[in-house]
């Protein structure tokens, strides 16, 4: 068992499956004998607002939320949300971001706000450790937009102290039987994602 703690901040927009991802990570860690805490806020966040889930893994975990600036991984289901969360990352942490773009009505309907032109570029300006993936396009190729979740988990898996087999076992245990195979494929596709060559 690893002696250090791991903190993963998962961010996205209500309805994207952020909470499912954090459940799966927690299940893998718990099965491996780690202490696990995770925290998210329900309620209004389900109505298209920002959703964030803090997952903490270690021999002994105190705070259910990550200390600002101490996340090992920021896992973003939406690129502007990835940018919003980027400063939670610690110095040698990794940001994994889906290039999904969800523009809220408040931006479309007003001149006061705008959606940034290149959120991933702005993330890269702050850290050279960014994995940016067209996860929604890959999910589309695999036939189900909901697979963004599993693709991102595949990319995340390199940065947590678990074997591939442990992840696959958790997917088999938690995903409905008829979706298991396509999720395993999505996970494999996610594992192929690496730190962007241009930024390494």
């Amino acid at each position, binding site marked *: 068992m690893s002696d250090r703690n791991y903190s993963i901040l998962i961010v996205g927009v209500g309805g994207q499956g952020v909470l499912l991802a954090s459940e799966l990570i927690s299940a893998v860690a*718990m099965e491996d004998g780690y202490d696990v805490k995770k925290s998210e806020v*329900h309620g*209004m966040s389900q109505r298209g607002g920002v959703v964030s889930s803090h997952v903490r893994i270690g021999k002994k975990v105190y705070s*259910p*939320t990550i200390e*600002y600036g101490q996340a090992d991984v920021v896992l973003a289901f939406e690129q502007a949300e990835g*940018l919003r969360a980027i400063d939670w990352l610690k110095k040698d942490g990794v940001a994994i971001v889906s290039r999904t773009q969800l523009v*809220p*009505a408040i931006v479309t309907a007003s001149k006061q706000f705008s959606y940034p032109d290149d959120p991933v570029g702005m993330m890269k300006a702050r850290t050279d450790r960014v994995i940016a993936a067209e996860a929604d396009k890959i999910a589309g190729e695999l036939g189900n937009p909901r697979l963004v979740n599993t693709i991102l988990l595949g990319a995340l898996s390199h940065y947590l102290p678990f074997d591939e087999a442990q992840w696959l076992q958790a997917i088999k245990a938690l995903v409905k039987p008829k979706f298991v195979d396509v999720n395993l494929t999505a996970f494999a596709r996610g594992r192929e994602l690496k730190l962007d060559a241009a930024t390494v």
Partner: protein
Amino acid sequence: MKELMSGNEAVARGALEAGVRMAVGYPGTPSTEILETVAARYPTVYCQWSPNEKVAFEVGIGASIGGGRTLVTMKHVGLNVAADPFMTFAYTGVNAGLVFISADDPAMHSSQNEQDNRFFARFAQVPFLTPSDSAECRSMLLDGYELSEKFDTPVMLHMTTRISHSKGIVETQEPSEGPDLKFVKDPSKYVMIPSHARERHLVVEDRLARLKELAETSPLNVVENNGSRIGIITGGVSYQYSKEVAPDFDYFKIGLGYPLPMKKIADFVSKHDRVIVVEELEPFWEDMIKAEGIKVEGKKYLGVQGEFSPRRVAMALSEAGVLEREVPEASSVDLFPRPPVLCPGCPHRGAFMALRKLKVAVTGDIGCYTLGVLQPLNALDTCICMGASIGNAIGMEKVKGSERGTVAVIGDSTFFHSGITGLVDAVYNQSNVTVVILDNRATAMTGGQQHPSTGKTLMGHDAGVIDIETLCRALGIKNFRRLDAYDYDAALETIKEEIDKPGPSVILTTRPCVLMPKRIMEEPYVVDLDLCNGCSACFRISCPAIAAAEQTNKHGHPLAVIDETLCTGCTLCSQICPEEAIVLKSQFVKA
């Protein structure tokens, strides 16, 4: 067995293990999942939603006096509603144990205020327990029943959003039957006429004195000695944040939050150079400790607003000069906000579009429809508490009237919660208000719970059904209309007509919540980009399914596109599009 559970799930588990016979409450974030978990996972425990927290508490009191261990759940502001039965139940005490949950919401993730309900325990002179993680939610609920029965008192379990909604590992045990108690007639204890209540007040004072003694030796209050000259007094989730950033200090971890063990605290403080009290919201413990002449610090570094975090505690301890730790600057990323919005196809949208157009004064209430205040709908003028909309409208209309009318909007569950008495007032005092009951047949904001007109109980059984129209007419409402809020012109016309009528009117909207019981997925609509002129009328109805297209008009304003996977086919955008550019997908045939 070990299981990853939220604080709410752990309380539900504790209820099973304690042999609870009655679990009752009203939905309210962050407490809702407690009873939902009881209903879903522990069907041997009787549970129910009551129409509001006051009734829930009264049902709970009856169950306790009747001899069954009882759990009552509510969010913090729910205890305001239940305060009347609670304050006097503190006098009568229990038969079987009663523990109630007050789930506070520091930072107001989903609430209208961030009151600190620990004061309620002190106000009523009853003890409260304060768990710091999911495992303690389970174990302290069990401790709460012991305490309740041993000291003949209701016990509060004080939770916060982070405790309720964070998950941690819980070691569960086998369920128990709980004590076998019967109802025993005892009017001097349970009938609070003045002569009895005077006697009971003496009992309450004596009980509090005995609880103070217990607190000095209770294992719920834990001293952790690490050989530090710095001491931290804390409890709840603040304990976890403090341990995270300053694991080497000495700790006085409070589990029994009221009354405090002042001798033990004085002893702890005397052994340290500096002692900081780390508690969210008000200086509840700090002030009580200082009142004993014990020297501690706290709020001057930590503040009273919002919720804590490891960063906030680290900053405060650094500022106090006891912790050397680099705390990073707050993020400089400056981005658009992403507030929660009404769902695509939400039936509230049509009503708000009409109200905005009519420029009436609109008193609001608590529910999904409170989101109607946000840009670009901008359709609400007040929101105070559950059920307030109707009374607010009456008051507003009585003092000044409103040239264009005064409209109260209230959801169906909120109407049953505490809107009915407001409507009684409107009839009694013949107020010229128009009440729009946004009936979506669910307690939607908290996740779609059942209520008195949905036909199902929390446990999934068939229920008695209260018909809103019959009820309103029985109260004396003569102007009663039904409205399909997907029909924008009808909404405009109906509301306008009812505003113009003298006396109170009720308009009942008829479309169910799009999230339950089943989605009304009809054919989606699409935007014909050859016809769309970028006027942005459809953007202003705040539908998440409508987004800006890459194409722009000659002024550089974006045209609109509809996300077909989100569109429910409610038709509202198509009704207000001046260019008739929004059409059914099947009718959109391109050459």
